[in-house]
């Protein structure tokens, strides 16, 4: 699983192996007689690489775009890593340099128009930033920098006069800098409704292709987990929550509303997301998260314009600023004087730019707090109930029960499973019991099944603040800033992660106030979120875009069928072994 994927760790050379799962029908029918170099047989057309042309004259080579490559084990893992690394700070800079950006202008009457459309390459730039990224950067700054201050620094960088606008070919910057926390609130409400029912009528797809998730419902916002499940344990796919992740939801929201309200094609909007891990790059390239899913007006299906065009990780911010000669730590940590133009729809504007930034309490964890919200939603529906917590066999497994005041009636049971080793145990329990298929009469032990209705699954131990793309304590930047004499060891790593978590939760209100907010305010809020407001916003979103809520907010998964390990002829096996590094011995 590529949970801790890092662009630094590339050391195998790239060949899509013989066992690549991309359908063989795209290969030329006449196979070359001599074992040609793989680059001829399986040409990899790299997304975003400008002007990469296939070999002219020969038969059409097999093309593997990032959209197809979903981390199957047929390809050498580093090929995937290279494709992922194309969504990089370099791509950001080169896109910024392509053409002068589109501008959004609001006239006195509140009408919003777009300027600069005559240049077909001009784009409208939007960036959404995850809270884990802000926390990581705040910890990197040190000196008690808060997450909010780090957020301001990012705003200044992307929007401000002295940030990206200060350089590059066209002095382009970003029009809007958004917080994925806002989208997250919608995901929490939708996720809870999916598990508990009620709220709004559960949207359904037009056909029966994507059935609703069956209990135990598993969080699907972690792309490392989703890709692993699709590749290795497809039997859990019926359990994955159909609700989009905050990144995906934000992408769809931006592309649909901006394109509709500004009258521009979604291709003209370039959406960058800054995330704590590399797997989010894989998520951004999913076929299910493009306009092909939601754009159907005038009979034409969408072109496959992505909802999120590019994802870079927290670490890559430093590479980005270094390329432009900006010192991140010198950026002022106050709100940018450059105002963000109002969003072309006031309801969405209020949704994306809430007047008070709400914080989560620590019990929510650092991965969005899906489980936390659901538990409190259950609590709010059952007066006088309370939540009991039982620690599992290690720090990354926790079980929760919502019980009545006597503790005898159990309303709801759920758990949190973080980290690959714990995910192993989870999927094992979900595996359907098959009869013995081997002559040695293997009998599987009777599956006890899972008592949980919901499990929050995350690939990274410790949650998203410990994501693969976050700033690490052994990055040179931190070593320099902290003045470590020797390479930081595990103790320093733990301390660092605590600092990042501290920044993540740093709030003006005391923790006790936040805890109180969890249990529901009189205004019907849960964890500081108003489900009714959220639902109203979602309905509004659907109406202004003319797209049903199902296609806007929900997604589907597909099993990655691989030839690896299946019955193959001897010849194929020999070729396969010859191609493997290490020879398979």
């Amino acid at each position, binding site marked *: 699983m590529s949970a801790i994927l890092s662009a630094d760790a590339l050391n195998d050379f790239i060949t899509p192996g013989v066992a690549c799962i991309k359908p063989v029908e795209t290969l030329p029918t006449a196979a070359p007689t001599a074992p040609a170099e793989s680059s001829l047989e399986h040409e990899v057309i790299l997304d975003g690489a400008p002007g990469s042309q296939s070999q002219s004259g020969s038969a059409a080579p097999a093309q593997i775009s990032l959209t197809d490559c979903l981390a199957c084990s047929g390809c050498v893992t580093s090929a995937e890593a290279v494709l992922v690394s194309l969504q990089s700070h370099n791509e950001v800079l080169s896109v910024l340099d392509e053409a002068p950006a589109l501008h959004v202008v609001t006239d006195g009457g509140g009408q919003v128009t777009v300027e600069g459309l005559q240049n077909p390459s001009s784009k409208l730039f939007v960036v959404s930033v995850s809270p884990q990224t802000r926390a990581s950067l705040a910890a990197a700054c040190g000196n008690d920098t808060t997450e909010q201050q780090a957020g301001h620094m990012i705003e200044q960088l992307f929007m401000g006069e002295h940030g990206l606008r200060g350089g590059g070919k066209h002095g382009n910057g970003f029009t809007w800098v958004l917080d994925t926390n806002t989208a997250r609130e919608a995901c929490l409400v939708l996720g809870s409704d999916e598990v508990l029912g009620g709220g709004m009528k559960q949207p359904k797809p037009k056909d029966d292709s994507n059935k609703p998730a069956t209990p135990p419902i598993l969080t699907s916002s972690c792309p490392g987990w989703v890709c692993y499940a699709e590749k290795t344990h497809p039997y859990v796919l019926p359990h994955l929550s159909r609700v989009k992740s905050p990144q995906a939801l934000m992408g769809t929201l931006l592309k649909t509303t901006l394109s509709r309200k500004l009258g521009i094609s979604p291709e003209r909007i370039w959406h960058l997301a800054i995330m704590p891990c590399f797997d989010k790059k894989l998520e951004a390239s999913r076929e299910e998260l493009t306009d092909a899913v939601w754009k159907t007006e005038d009979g034409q299906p969408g072109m496959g314009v992505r909802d999120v065009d590019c994802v870079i990780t927290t670490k890559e911010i430093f590479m980005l600023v270094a390329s432009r000669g900006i010192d991140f730590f010198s950026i002022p940590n106050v709100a940018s004087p450059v105002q963000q133009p109002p969003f072309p729809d006031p309801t969405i504007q209020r949704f994306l730019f809430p007047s008070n930034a709400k914080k989560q309490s620590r019990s929510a964890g650092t991965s969005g707090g899906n489980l936390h919200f659901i538990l409190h939603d259950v609590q709010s529906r059952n007066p006088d109930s309370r939540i009991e917590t039982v620690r599992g*066999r290690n720090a990354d497994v926790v079980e929760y029960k919502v019980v009545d005041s006597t503790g005898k009636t159990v309303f709801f049971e759920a758990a949190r499973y973080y980290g690959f080793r714990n995910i*192993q145990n989870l999927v*094992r329990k979900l595996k359907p019991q098959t009869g013995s298929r081997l002559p040695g009469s*293997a009998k599987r*032990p009777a599956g006890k099944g899972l008592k949980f209705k919901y499990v929050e699954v995350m690939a990274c131990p410790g949650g998203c603040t410990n994501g693969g793309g976050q700033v690490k304590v052994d990055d040179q930047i931190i070593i320099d800033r902290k003045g470590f004499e020797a*390479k930081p*060891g595990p*103790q320093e790593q733990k301390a660092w992660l605590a600092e990042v978590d501290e920044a993540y939760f740093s709030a003006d209100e005391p923790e006790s106030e936040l805890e109180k907010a969890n249990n529901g305010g009189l205004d019907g809020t849960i964890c500081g979120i108003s489900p009714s407001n959220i639902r109203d916003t979602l309905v509004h979103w659907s109406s202004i875009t003319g797209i049903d809520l199902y296609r806007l907010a929900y997604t589907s998964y597909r099993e990655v069928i691989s030839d690896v390990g299946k019955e193959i002829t001897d010849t194929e096996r020999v070729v396969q072994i010859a191609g493997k590094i290490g020879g398979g011995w």
Partner: protein
Amino acid sequence: MGAKIEPLPPFTPDLYQRAWASVPHPTLPLLATAHANSVTVFSLSTLSKHSALTGGHSRSVRTVTWQPGLKSHQLRLVTGSFDASAGLWSWNGDNNEVTSGERLEVDVTKPQEGEEEEEAKEDWEFNLVLEGHENEIKSVAFSPSGQFLATCSRDKTVWIWEDVGVEDDDDEWETLAVLNDHDADVKAVAWAPDVPGRTKGARGKYSADVLASASYDNTVRIWREEGEGEWVCVACLEGHNGTVWGLQFESCPRRGDKFPRLLTWSADGSIRIWSLKEEPEEEGEEADTGSGATAGSIFRSGLGGIPNTMRRSLREDWECTAVLPKVHTREIYSATWSAKTGMIASTGSDGTIALYAEVEADGDTEMANTAADAETKDSASPAWKVLTTVPVAHGPYEINHITWCKRFDSGAERKGEEEMLVTTGDDGVIRPWKVTTQ
């Protein structure tokens, strides 16, 4: 001092398939041999086949191990296969014939009249499949108490498993840890045996079990459990110039209760012995570790000591204290360190068996043994010398495995105590060797 290695009649029958490893049961007169897709269990009393484990795996079974610490009527084996799964097997017959150590009355290769039905019932049952590794499993090993099972694979990871259904007499295994630190194919795993010195280095911070792994990335890593199911890499042993094919901890208790030494063997043709550098306990704390550990020496190698910028500051230091004299001309696939005599035997691609003994530093040719007469000199590392070699022990075939094994056959003078060597080769013949030293 010299030694003689003489062949004993090979185990019957010939397997006619490449055989990979033969593992003796810790106490009973049984030997399990992995070959092709199955395992054959031989009786050490008769030097002939006792039973077989068939089916269960779709690809080569390269590794097999006995589960220790079971009740007396139980026999369990774990197999590790190239099909990426590990199998748990139980013997459902009674063990009377086996435990008594007497010669089996019945030659199981020729079922007797009227006894066929009874024998057909006694068999190995395939209880459970452990899945999770991405590709070929190279080695499996149980911790000394049998609580933990370690598996390692070409997917560069080492997994630690535990049977959590033990009380219910059920098989329910959970993954405790997936250890990612190796950069390449992990070839072997081994646990430190339960000797008094084993808790050295734990410093109250770790539990007693210590795991080591050997890899295609030329390193060996040491792992310990730091509180609540968190297994961490505490050392990375660098020095070999090729794949480290295997490793074994010293099984006899050391003088001064030192931590068992580690034997490693490699494709680079060398066999090395590594020792844990033990820091004396210090009063007070070296640095504010935040862990409350009284021995600040944990961080000596990291922050306080000379920083080694070439590698991460891990938590304990191992050094290579001996390199055995070179005998093999090609890759060394296997070596074995006797728990009784302290002798080491090795073998590999060149088909040679070599036997080594430890020499005290003062030059006397004494064997290092558990009952210490000589004084230890901490500063001088003992040297090793070659006692004898047997070339082309399996003819032109590579030898994949060698192990010390107690003798229970009729030719043994002291059954259950005397040790022989057993080699396992590409010719599918399992050969026992009598070892005599003068």
